[in-house]
């Protein structure tokens, strides 16, 4: 995989078609130079990541509640692979239970986003995430900063 392009490589893995639609709409309206690749299941995502021809992504938005392969499993599997050590993984889930936050935090996710119920808010979140200084964020990461509060 190569990451030479200036384009931001964004991956989204979500089984919900509406959410995928809102997500791509929001990104489109943000007018950021990006390449969004969308997966409907964890299995598809893992297939893609294992393929050496594909671009190395900058950031992955990962839903947790998905059939077949749950988000948490994908997260664990990705983090086991050394080449994805610096891949930013943002959890993107409807739920925000203590358990989910705890599990994803301890398994190496970078940030936890609870899906908003307002499109403007979604855009705000996307804007924040895509302009975040990840090195700075990851250095000061703790459970308080892990859960995104906008």
């Amino acid at each position, binding site marked *: 995989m190569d990451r030479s392009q200036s384009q931001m490589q964004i991956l989204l893995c979500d089984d*919900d078609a*509406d959410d995928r639609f*809102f997500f791509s*709409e929001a990104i489109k309206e943000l007018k950021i130079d990006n390449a969004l690749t969308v997966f409907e299941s964890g299995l598809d995502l893992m297939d893609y990541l294992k393929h050496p021809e594909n671009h190395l992504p900058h950031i992955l938005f990962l839903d947790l*509640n998905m059939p077949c392969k749950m988000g948490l499993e994908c997260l664990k599997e990705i983090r086991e692979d050394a080449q994805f050590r610096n891949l930013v993984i943002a959890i993107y889930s*409807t*739920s925000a*239970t*203590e358990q989910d936050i705890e599990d994803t935090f301890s398994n190496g996710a970078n940030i936890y986003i609870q*899906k*908003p*119920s*307002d*499109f*403007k808010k*979604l855009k705000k979140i996307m804007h924040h995430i895509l302009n975040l200084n990840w090195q700075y964020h990851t250095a000061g990461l703790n459970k308080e900063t892990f859960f995104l509060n906008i």
Partner: protein
Amino acid sequence: MGFLKKIDHIKLLKIALGISIFSIGYLLTMFYFQMNELENNKIEIEKYSKADIELLHFKSIVEEDSYRTQSQILNQSISSNTIDFNAISNAAFIKNAASFEGIEPKYAQKQNFIKELIADYIAFKKELFAGKSNSTVSNYNTINANLLLNINELSADLESKINTSNDAYLQMLENSKTSGFLIALISLTIFVLAYVKMNEDLMKLQKINDDVSFINQTLQNAEMVAGFGSWKLNTVENRFIISDNFYRLLGTEPNSFTPSLDKIMSFVHPEDRSRVLQLHEDSFNKNETTTIIYRYLLEDGTVRHMISVGKFLNNSKGELVKIGVNQDITELMKKTKELEDKNQRLISTNSELESFNNIVSHDLQEPLRKIQMFISRIESKDFVASSNEATITYFDKIKSAASRMQNLMNDLVDFTRTVKGDRIFEQVDLNVLFEEITEDLILIIEEKQAIILIDQLPTILGTKFQIQQLFVNLMSNALKYVKLGIVPKIIVKLEEFSQDFVNDKNISSEEYYKITVTDNGIGFEQKHADKIFMLFKRLQTDQSYKGTGLGLAICKKIVDNNNGFIKAVGVPDQGSVFTVYLPKNINLS
């Protein structure tokens, strides 16, 4: 014996007995020696008496002889025929000196001297017979007088000796009488002491007997009340003894059968019998304490659950005895079973609640969120410009309904979460907590330009997310229930107090922090003060105040979970004061 009783009289009795027995032993020994001496003394007196009698007898022979001789001398008719030499020389005193044997030497010497004088006497007499002359007569008279003097002297000596011995004998007799009296007296004392001791022992034994029968009676009553029975198995005599209540546990009358292992085993539930018998037999291998839980199947068909604890002991004869207690635990088993069932139901209810919680928090929120997302999409696409007034009104109503539903679901999730109560107590600095809360609520605070005054607050022990939820709810209520056009003013204070009375309970400042949240909102009628903490009880029917009826119920739940108290005081159109008491020390739970 009054004074003895005050001291340890049994000990005193023992000491007295010991001294008496020792004295009587000493006296008896003394008495024995005294008797021996008395005996010796008696023999000696007899001996001296005998010697004296012989001497006196001899004296009378000599006197008779000298008398005759004197009269012959006077009558001038001396003839050898009239002189009886034989009588003198054959006298026991001369011939048989046995009576003088063992007599003190000084007497024997005198005896010998007398014997010598006798020889002289006979010689002079012969001389006298040979031819009477004045000198011979005079010589004879001299020796005669000398002989008699010596005999008298010896006799006097002997008598004096006898008298001395006799006095000694009498003295000794007196002493032995005293000893005998003392022996009799001390023996009597021993008898009396032994009697008293025996009496004491008997009384003690009687008291012990009374105690034992009392304890027995108590045990029997206790067995009846507590539903247990006791048993004893003498392993040497193979004898089984069971208590009255054991018979009753078996559903029979006391003493209605002769207990034996087989007989008792016949009451054990057939399914348990071999196991119980095995355990019983195994217990003899190591003489270990056994605890067996099993069932009895009584004649009328009822099943009783028993716990039997058996233990090995040695009795006073050194025989191995197995004793045990059986307790009827049928009720306990029933209750435990009920409790287990209830627990099981509770667990399943809880897990249902959990899945309900999951449905609310995820599956139900999902479509609602979509609705809200689409609403926000429509809004942003020049919707207002292209629609008529009625549509816009309807659309706003859809929006507010969706938002109400979302609030309700969020509150429901929060409520079930507080019910579930994963209570991890930690140090919570309320100052930091309130900074976070005001940050969370900054939008509405800024919107209403609310004035928030927060006192210096303590650090408490509690479940952080719950404590946060509690004060978020109280603060947002204070911000929410305010008349239009009035600037909300909220004061959070740590109150000083000594003792308060809440929910029929005295609350002291030593154990609790008292924190008040005071607002200038719409308040409420004080008569409704208790209702506001109930689930889905809303005092406000005015739709302009959005509420789910869950917020204060959650607060109440959280305060309960943290072992605290909450109360509310309201004045309509003036404001309300919510008081929260939180424990200073976690031990209160």
